[in-house]
């Protein structure tokens, strides 16, 4: 037993080391890109650090960006553990935001104690609703959830564009955005004159909740079994389909919660056409870097928050397009994927177990249980 526990700790530290290496390699490649456009690596690095952490303002923005990233990443983890690859987070964020805007603008006036929680809840319902479409299509009609969620993202983007142009358009401005929300529906500011609001509290709560539910509760156990081995799940009386649908609903609700944060704690107190801001897909990258472990989400989201905040600042200070952040994120996913799969195959070969591409993405503590289909 002790030997196995020690092996597990060893495996985890190798994993952490590997992820750090991946981050360094990806950032080094980004530096090459930056150098190619005539900015020296030294000033590139200092511009990055300055942009992400250099002032109270920048640090607060980094932390604010971490919030939707963490929530989306947790959403991916819940669905992924149940064996579902849903990538509909952008759409779920948008629909969550739309429901938020209904609650914020049409349900009032209410005291803030009721109005804000109601608006947040509305966002979660909206996200879950949009995920439900994909979940039902998958469970009832066998439609691959990755395709349906990709298409639902495209549909949601158009619904949002219509929403802020027609029914909820603020007629005092030509910009596609809603009327300003009442203060009672907004997250209060945590640090005056920065982007940081009280919704940062949601992150530790959600991380703890997801980690606890997946590891300690019966439902979490069912999710893991259904995801690791549907056959075994069926034998144990667990329906991988209903568990998959439930996990996707929870996943969508978490994306909706991220949408609520973006709408109710944004830089402006209204909802615009582009409020999603790419957080939906970047959250997936966060989850993969965290190797689908709820705890790992915190450092990974902090890194990605810093990346996108620094990217914005750097486009102003050293004239490097903020799109570079997208390149770095894509690179990191590829490197994580390659590194973890190779590591996993080697470990499995040493143990003589089977190999599965998806099992390679599970956190190391889960790998054994994923192979035999029972909790370790």
């Amino acid at each position, binding site marked *: 037993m002790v030997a196995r526990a020690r092996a597990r700790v060893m495996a985890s530290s190798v994993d952490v080391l590997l992820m750090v290496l991946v981050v360094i390699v990806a950032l080094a490649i980004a530096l090459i890109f930056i150098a190619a456009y005539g900015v020296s690596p030294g000033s590139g690095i200092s511009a990055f650090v300055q942009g992400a952490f250099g002032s109270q303002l920048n640090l607060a923005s980094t932390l604010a960006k971490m919030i939707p990233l963490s929530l989306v990443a947790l959403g991916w983890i819940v669905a992924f553990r149940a064996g579902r690859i849903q990538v509909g987070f952008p759409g779920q964020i948008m629909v969550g935001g739309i429901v938020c805007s209904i609650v914020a603008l049409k349900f009032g006036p209410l005291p803030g104690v009721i109005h804000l929680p109601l608006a947040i809840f509305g966002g979660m319902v909206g996200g879950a609703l949009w995920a439900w479409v994909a979940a039902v299509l998958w469970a009832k009609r066998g439609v691959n959830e990755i*395709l349906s969620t990709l298409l639902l*993202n495209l549909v949601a983007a*158009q619904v949002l564009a*219509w929403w802020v142009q027609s029914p909820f358009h603020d007629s005092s401005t030509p910009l596609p955005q809603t009327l300003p929300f009442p203060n009672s529906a907004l997250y209060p500011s945590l640090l005056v004159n920065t982007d940081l609001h009280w919704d940062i509290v949601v992150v530790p709560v959600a991380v703890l909740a997801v980690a606890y539910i997946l590891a300690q509760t019966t439902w979490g156990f069912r999710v893991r079994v259904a995801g690791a081995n549907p056959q075994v799940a069926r034998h144990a009386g667990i329906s991988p389909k209903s568990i998959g649908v439930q996990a996707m609903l929870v996943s969508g609700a978490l994306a909706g919660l991220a949408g609520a944060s973006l709408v109710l704690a944004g830089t402006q107190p209204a909802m615009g056409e582009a409020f999603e801001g790419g957080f939906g897909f970047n959250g997936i990258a966060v989850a993969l870097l965290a190797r689908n472990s709820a705890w790992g989400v915190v450092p990974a989201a902090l890194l990605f928050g810093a990346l996108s905040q620094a990217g914005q600042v750097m486009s102003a200070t050293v004239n490097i*397009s903020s799109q570079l952040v997208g390149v770095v*994120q894509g690179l990191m996913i590829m490197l994580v994927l390659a590194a973890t799969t190779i590591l996993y195959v080697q470990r499995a070969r040493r143990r003589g177990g089977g190999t599965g591409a998806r099992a390679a993405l599970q956190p190391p503590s889960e790998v054994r249980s994923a192979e035999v289909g029972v909790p370790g």
Partner: protein
Amino acid sequence: MIHFSLAAIGVGPFDTNLLSQALILATPILLAGVGELISERAGVINVGLEGMMLSGAFFSYVLTWKSHSLVVGCLAGIGGGLVFGVIMGLLAIEVGADQIVAGVAIDLAALGLTGFMFEQIFQNLPQIVVPTVNNIAIPGLSKIPSFGPALFNHDPLLYLAFLLVPLSWFLLYRTRWGLAIRAAGELPMAADSAGISVRRIRWMGVLTAAGMAGLAGADLSIVQVGIFHENLSAGLGYLGLVAVIFGRWRALGVLAAALVLGGANALQLRVGEQPYIQGAFWGAIALIAFSLLGGELLPGRGPVRRSALGLTGLAGIAGVVLLIVEPHISLSQPLWVGFPYVVALLVLAGARTSARMPTALAVAYRRGQG
């Protein structure tokens, strides 16, 4: 046929222009779809299709601008797709990583890379429109009155796309290569023991899909519009994936699916710009749904489900009622833009597909480890 009968009942937007537009908009979906068909039959699903298309669109635009040659542009498009195809092959075949996650990574990276390079190269330049590929009228056929010009006066890539349908059918079903491809996607172990290199076949599949997705991107940027902007492909690559699934992994099916999706897109563009839509339009849509759903009920398509029967009846009744009542319902423009994607979702929901899926799709193959 539909287009004539609808014109007869006075639905404005259905005319030969729409037909021509539908073919043009089906072309990138078809190009990407046929490539993806080969890849999926070999056992590799390529969600990175969207990113490869975007990359192809970007590189063909830049190289057409630099070289003033459309041939170079098209080759650059193929190359732009292949760059990400090599990455996909390394991840999916050599490493054996999760294909879907690898594809998502490629989409993200391509979106970032093309956006980054576009901004870095063109941020201080005015909007550059590159010359687009000229149409070639097919002698004789294009002179046919009414639909002749709509069908036979197009750019060469469009002809190529439609030509690739029978070619890919021939490749898959009448050549040794095709047999090897299908074996690699159905039962890679058996293919391996028969002396077929699953690895090489899958590489070929991935690169075919990537190159053709890149060419589809070139079709978007240097054939259709002559410009590039961030996220030019805007989901068309995903429609290529939908076309393969809706087409039940058959070449003719992919063609039909591409035409339905391209048609929906053309219709969207057409009616989106009209202030209001004649009620007959909605009736026509319901009747099309009726015939599509009815097709599923034909003998030989498996057991008839009561829900399918009910839906078909409902669509039929709705169609007739809408044609008689003619209500004026109109949608605002963004909702029309979303229309083809809703059609794609309905198509996926309506198609009975899982039985035809290649058995080893998205399953990594390692020699000696079944």
